[in-house]
């Protein structure tokens, strides 16, 4: 609070993040940036040494966009988009499906598997 009137920088800092004091921002931001760099590189597909930027997917639930209230186990073409090559259910963090729709999708996929519309697992040689 003592350096607030003398330095004009806190005003800009306040506009960006009102509750954070300016002093610990430097080191913490550095630490965070480190984490941010490491996370995607570990999870991303082939984040090589070229320093390629991590490709962030458009995280929008497809079912919400198309305003589908019910996911039917019979339309395989829709469901198949949310199943990986091996026949596994894609996690939400990859497909971007919202939680309520992922729950419906899970049931639909399991039903479709039961009636041989979708594979339980596919062999990849």
């Amino acid at each position: 609070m003592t350096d607030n009137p003398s330095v004009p920088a806190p005003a800009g800092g306040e506009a960006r993040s009102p509750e954070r004091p300016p002093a610990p921002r430097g080191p913490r931001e550095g630490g965070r940036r480190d984490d941010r760099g490491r996370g995607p590189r570990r999870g991303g597909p082939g984040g090589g040494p070229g320093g390629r930027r991590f490709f962030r997917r458009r995280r929008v639930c497809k079912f919400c966009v198309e305003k589908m209230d019910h996911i039917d186990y019979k339309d395989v073409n829709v469901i198949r988009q949310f199943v990986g090559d091996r026949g596994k259910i894609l996690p939400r963090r990859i497909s971007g499906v919202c939680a309520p729709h992922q729950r419906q999708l899970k049931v639909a996929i399991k039903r479709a598997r039961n009636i041989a519309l979708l594979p339980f697992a596919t062999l990849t040689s």
Partner: protein
Amino acid sequence: MRTYEVIFILRPDLPETETDALIEQMQQSVTGAGGRVTNADKCKWGKRPLAYRVHGQREGFFVLFEVEGGGEALRELERRLKVAEPVLKLLSVRVDLERKRAEKHRHKREHRAARRHRPAPAGGPSAAEARPPDGPAPAGA
């Protein structure tokens, strides 16, 4: 009254007459137990590839029934299907609750959208004014 979807797979090498006979027989078992097959005329999906092999078969003849009725109708149908030899697989799902839920969601969303787009409804009295005055003599009388 409940609604069920019963989907079953028949052997693909079954002659068409036998397929039709079996479907007919199953429909009768539903009606006999007090139910009703609501999509009786278009219940056949036809031959489709199976995602995995079932009894050595790589494809199957899919049939989908929408059954309306109580649990007894479904139980009888399931029993008959399990006993029937050309049936490879069957799955029955109760759909009335899910449909009701989906309907509710749809209504909710429409309601919300309507409220957002028309914040101030107007035209009640003006509509009354716009009503044409009755009085002109009917033509050709």
